């Protein structure tokens, strides 16, 4: 078993440092960390995005992220989970979300990380607005991703 450390679920308007976030979930006794790093794409279905704006229902988003972490601990043999989502204006190529999962064995880390990003996109009340040269749209649902 890995040495127990704290999970974390955070929302921030500061740039995300993937490596620093991944290091925070690593206990000395674990074997592998899997990190998902989502970032702003320039094109969605052929339409060019200039930048994105992320908005959250912050209090609820934190609760939902913490619920996902609890569920992940129930469903996967993992040790630590860190989730950080960024809000506000994000330029093309900037990181919008980092999910890092440390586990004694890599299979559980991969499975949990993939499950967490899927569920985050389904349940955590955060929305993105794509801003184009000729307008802007709030994206509703994650079908386009």
């Amino acid at each position, binding site marked *: 078993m890995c040495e127990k450390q704290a999970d974390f679920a955070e929302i921030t308007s500061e740039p995300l440092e993937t490596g620093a976030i991944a290091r925070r979930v690593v206990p000395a006794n674990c074997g592998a960390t899997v990190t998902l790093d989502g970032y702003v794409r320039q094109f969605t279905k052929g339409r060019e995005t200039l930048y994105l704006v992320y908005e*959250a*229902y912050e209090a609820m988003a934190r*609760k939902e992220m913490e619920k996902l972490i609890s569920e992940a601990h129930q469903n996967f043999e993992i040790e630590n989970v860190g989730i950080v989502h960024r809000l506000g204006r994000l330029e093309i190529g900037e990181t919008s*979300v980092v999910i890092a999962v440390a586990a004694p064995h890599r299979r559980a880390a991969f499975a949990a990380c993939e499950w967490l990003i899927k569920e985050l*996109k389904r*349940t955590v009340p955060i*929305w993105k607005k794509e801003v184009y040269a000729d307008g802007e749209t*709030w994206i509703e649902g994650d079908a386009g991703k």
Partner: protein
Amino acid sequence: MKVQVLFFGATADEVGEREIEIDLESAAQADAVFAQIVGKFPQLEKHSLLFAVNQEYANGDEIINEGDELAVFTAVSGG
């Protein structure tokens, strides 16, 4: 009795407010309260809406009481 209703993203744009207060005659079931809110802002009907009560997704059958925090928003798109 007064309850607070929050809007985010597309619903905030439609309503033109991020937060309103509504006055209910008495404690009521969530379904009925949300129907009343959407009735007041019919421009919301073109969206697929989600509802929350006190920062939890609504079941619909919970009773809304004075001081509760409701929220109306579209399908989420974080990540």
